[in-house]
């Protein structure tokens, strides 16, 4: 399996490796493999050619806004850390297939991954990563770093590059090195960022983040920024909507906040500005 083949084949450690292989039954991380079509058929093209790109139940769940950013506490009363905020819509074409998808998936106590792209792809591979991380911690007697977890994730995705996986994930967490966000996608990209947004509504979210983000914020400011950015993204992007789920990861741990209806957020926002957003019926 892809995850298992990245052991260093260094001459010096080979004996040790062989010994381990022979006498220590190291847990196998994942024996999963996709049954692939024979004769070099590419699944993606095959589905496209034979069922058409228009077919509704083959349009995988897409359309999302996810964001995450790091911040430092502005006052000693604040904790700082990472804010992760996402919408909750799953759509297939114009059809909203779910209004309440949890797009922040746990990887560990202080680590989460967000999902954007194919929902099934994200959920499945996040589970594989989580399993790897757990086994890693059991084996190494120390929690895995965000960098290592995200690298494993990126390697897995790179192995399937070009076969039609659709994943855009942010692995966010607090480890011994501090807070970190790694953006990972199905093209094999992996990059460490302080402010990050992924999904069809990401550009809209970036607009808000870039305007209002400060490296030092109070916890409340940071949460407001997360909600606000998601709300604005869902407003412009028809692929995003529902409620805004928000997670705050601080040095102490992970806090999940209940979902807030983005439509409600928008009405509150408009009221705050005193702007009349209700359509005024015009005469014809």
């Amino acid at each position: 399996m892809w995850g298992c083949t990245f052991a260093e084949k260094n001459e010096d450690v080979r004996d040790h490796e062989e010994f381990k292989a022979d006498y220590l039954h190291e847990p196998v991380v994942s024996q999963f493999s996709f049954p692939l079509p024979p004769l070099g058929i590419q699944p993606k093209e095959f589905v496209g050619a034979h069922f058409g790109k228009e077919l509704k139940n083959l349009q995988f769940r897409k359309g999302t806004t996810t964001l995450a950013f790091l911040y430092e506490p502005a006052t000693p009363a604040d904790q700082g850390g990472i804010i992760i905020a996402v919408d909750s819509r799953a759509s297939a074409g114009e059809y909203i297939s779910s209004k309440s998808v949890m797009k922040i998936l746990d990887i560990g106590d202080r680590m989460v991954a967000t999902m954007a792209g194919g929902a099934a792809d994200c959920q499945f591979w996040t589970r594989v990563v989580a399993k790897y991380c757990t086994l890693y911690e059991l084996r190494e007697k120390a929690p895995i770093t965000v960098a290592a977890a995200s690298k494993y994730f990126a390697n897995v995705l790179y192995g399937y590059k070009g076969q039609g996986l659709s994943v855009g994930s942010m692995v966010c967490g607090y480890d011994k090195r501090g807070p970190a966000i790694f953006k990972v996608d199905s093209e094999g990209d992996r990059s460490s960022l302080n402010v990050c947004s992924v999904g069809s509504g990401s550009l809209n979210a970036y607009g808000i983040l870039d305007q209002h983000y400060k490296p030092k914020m109070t916890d409340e400011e940071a949460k407001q920024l997360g909600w606000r950015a998601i709300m604005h993204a869902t407003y412009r992007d028809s692929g995003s909507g529902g409620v805004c789920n928000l997670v705050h990861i601080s040095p102490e741990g992970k806090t999940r906040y209940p979902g807030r209806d983005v439509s409600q957020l928008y009405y509150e926002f408009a009221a705050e500005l005193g702007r009349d957003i209700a359509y005024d019926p015009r005469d014809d």
Partner: protein
Amino acid sequence: MSIMSYNGGTVLAMAGNECVCIATDLRFGEQMTTVAVDQKKVHKISDKVYVGLAGFASDAKTVLEKINFRKGLYELRENRKLKPEVLATMISNLCYQHRFGSFFTEPLVAGLDPITSKPYICAMDTIGCIAAPRDFVAVGTGQEYLLGVCETFWRENMNADDLFEATAQSILSALERDAASGWGAVVYTITKDNVNVRTIKARMD
């Protein structure tokens, strides 16, 4: 992607007792992006006759202009008010004239007979096939969701208030599941005395 869902938008009409309701969403998009939230798809043609045009926005606009032109010509020639049936036939013929190169818009007509106040609603496909049931019609991206929900929300002989609630709740339900429509909705309740236009609270995502 179908050209019919490029801009998005949904129109619904329901018939009651001497009243009809016609509801429209307000979104104007370009595929996934919402460009404007003040684009109603329902247009007044005469006092008691309204037309809804869902589909490709630029064609909807062209067709609306053609409809208004023909309606003007009709009133000048015939010197009488346009009945909703007559308007529907007019639009049907207009659309069918473009049978082999159609406008990508599905017209919907709702109104009351100017004299008898008999409600009339109908929907068409892009080449002008009229379907005029007695209960409700819907066109646009949310059509499939609307037809389902209206089956239960519609009742015989509703008065104007009940009809408004049923129409508003139907379109709100459809907007819950249709990503290409929404961002506010307007309901026109046409009775023999007046037309009530109400902007209802809808989701903004």
